[in-house]
């Protein structure tokens, strides 16, 4: 398809950058119902000493971090609750990479996924102004007020209260600073009826890229797949009929999904766990945040080292040799619509029958089938529309 259709932006330096995540706090103002972080708390806040030691370890082991670029990622809980610490860490990274003549000195991003609640605070804004050219910020807003408030509720006792109003007020400021800003929408069973209206609402707010996915956990009820397909079909109609595909993108629709995958040629792992590095308040290293204790329901954390002893490379070997077919059941290997069917290594581990990352969870199987059916509809309808428009008779031009 030609460039009239907006593509999803790829990640900065995709595949070329190391992703290093600081879990600066396990606290958050919200208590989202679908949040996979089961161990959130107000106590585990990263100290400056731990953060500094982590940066020192990473920069001192340049030979183990040879990627040309780095994304320094800050998450929580809600990372902007620790803006003072983050500011100090970022300043330290900048001065140390310069002092050490480190190859990441001018090839870095600071990345944030925030709930957006204190985005307009003076401290956060000062930080953004200071580092603007090296920052990526994604604000999570789930769609319409009723969809957003269904899950993204304030923490605390008393009646449930949604956070939509506190977030949406900051969207214009955010988009003025990051016009290409994208949002991340998470779909659980209860959210399905609101998918169409939510994506359209986010477009109406000016958000051009909506990255949306169903949760990987086994939460799906009978009939969810039918409803999901129906919502995506209605969304496809709206996007195509109103020409929204020219300026807006939604990750549910992709030409690449729904094809069979070759067992040898398309055998790479979906997930980047193990190529990333995550650090918590105790100074422990994880292959991804999803393997930290606060992310796991049933399993012990997978700690691959710490700021004192460094990384135990043996603990990374399973992650770095993990391929698609070794972890997949036969039905996935034989699946005719396998491409685009995602998984989360942490959820695989958490849901596995044994303590392994080599057992793929297939909880989203029927949802993927539904997505592929709607996706096929989307592209068939869009191609046909483009074809008909291309063949429209144009006004004849007088050659004289």
């Amino acid at each position, binding site marked *: 398809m030609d460039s009239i259709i907006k593509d999803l932006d790829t990640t900065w330096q995709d595949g070329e950058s190391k992703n290093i995540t600081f879990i600066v706090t396990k606290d958050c103002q919200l208590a989202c119902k679908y949040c996979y972080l089961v161990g959130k708390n107000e106590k585990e806040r990263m100290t400056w000493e731990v953060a500094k030691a982590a940066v020192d370890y990473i920069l001192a082991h340049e030979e183990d971090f040879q990627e040309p670029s780095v994304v320094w990622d800050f998450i929580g809980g809600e990372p902007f609750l620790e803006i003072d610490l983050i500011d100090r860490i970022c300043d330290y990274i900048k001065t140390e990479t310069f002092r050490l003549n480190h190859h990441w000195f001018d090839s870095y991003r600071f990345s944030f996924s925030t709930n957006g609640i204190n985005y307009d605070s003076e401290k956060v804004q000062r930080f953004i102004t200071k580092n603007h050219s090296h920052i990526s910020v994604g604000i999570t807003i789930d769609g319409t007020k009723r969809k957003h408030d269904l899950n993204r509720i304030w923490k605390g006792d008393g009646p449930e209260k949604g956070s939509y109003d506190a977030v949406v007020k900051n969207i214009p400021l955010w988009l003025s600073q990051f016009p290409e800003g994208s949002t991340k929408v998470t779909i659980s069973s209860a959210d399905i009826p609101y998918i169409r209206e939510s994506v359209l609402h986010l477009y109406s707010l000016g958000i051009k890229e909506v990255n949306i996915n169903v949760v990987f956990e086994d939460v799906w009820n009978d009939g969810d797949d039918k409803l999901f397909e129906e919502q995506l079909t209605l969304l496809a109609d709206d996007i195509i009929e109103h020409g929204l595909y020219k300026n807006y993108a939604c990750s549910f629709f992709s030409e690449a999904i729904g094809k069979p995958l070759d067992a040898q040629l398309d055998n790479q792992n979906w997930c980047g766990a193990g190529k990333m590095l995550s650090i918590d308040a105790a100074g422990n290293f994880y292959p991804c945040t999803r393997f930290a204790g606060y992310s796991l329901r049933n399993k012990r954390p997978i700690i691959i080292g710490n700021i004192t002893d460094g990384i135990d490379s*043996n*603990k990374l070997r*399973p992650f770095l*040799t*993990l*391929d698609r077919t070794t972890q997949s059941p036969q039905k996935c290997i034989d699946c005719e619509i396998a491409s685009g069917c995602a998984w989360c290594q942490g959820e695989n581990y958490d849901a596995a*029958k044994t303590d392994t990352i080599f*057992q793929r969870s297939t909880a989203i199987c029927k949802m993927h089938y539904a997505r592929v059916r709607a996706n096929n509809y989307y592209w068939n309808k869009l191609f046909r529309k483009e074809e008909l428009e291309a063949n429209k008779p144009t006004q004849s031009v007088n050659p004289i």
Partner: protein
Amino acid sequence: MIKYLIIPLSDNAVSFCHYNARKGSSATIETETLRKALIWAMKENLSVQFLYPSEGVGKNIELIINTIDHTDIVPADCRDNNRLKGADIVVFNTWDGIETFGFRPDQSYIIRTTTEILINHRDGIQALLKKVNRLNIVVTDVPNFNPELHNGYQEFLESLIPTIVEEYSSGHMVQLNLLTDRIMLTGMNNCNAGNESLTLAPDGNFYTCPAFYFDGFPAVGTTEQGPDIKNPQLYRLSHAPICRICDAYQCKRCVWHNQQLTFEVNTPGKQQCVMAHIERNASRKLLEALRKAMPGFMSETIIQEIKYLDPFDNIKI
């Protein structure tokens, strides 16, 4: 498919492998449990291997053991002389007494030792190779196999080559697991715990191997309900991304070490891979030396020269 059942008869039964038996306990398997397990083993067509403690076992246990064809693995310091004489495999946990032991051609022998002590007993091993037909050396500190030991281990293995060549030349085809197995094998021949072998522990439960029992891992079944290994595919070579492309065929591919070092039973730690490749490369040199002494020796066998000691380096994604 499970083919072998290993039964440590007590908590202090001799270890024949990398793990150590439980210290401070001599709890013995219950006779009724043993009886049921052996009936089950017969029905499943399993080969049974018994591991004995130094003090031997009581008459009741003896009677049950003799109801099934089996292999006896006995510690060299066993105080029951008849048991020691009748052993199929004798295990040495110490170098004491090896020089004076009455080795026999119909028995196989295992020496369990740390790498450093092994390297320092080169002369002892050379002497032993002249006395036995089959010797297995089991290194008990694989996780500590650091780069400082690599050269010493390689030199130790290569120092045994002249002795083995001499023995072969004189018609004594001695087998040493670390050197001759790789020459004889045409494919991976690993421990295969969880895939081909299973362990019935003194507590009456099934475990992947004795090491998992002695190291406190959960059981994988009871004698009442039978074994139930979850994710059994992970114990197969096909589901071991590093091992399935490896040609260090003699490697034990110890799933307990894998679990210890990488948290995954199907993924070896670097130490195990490097150790196995030093053995593989020494085996290659042994094959060359044997061919020089005996032209045409195993002419079909080819062990390629390789530039790596860890196959992980070839496949990390």
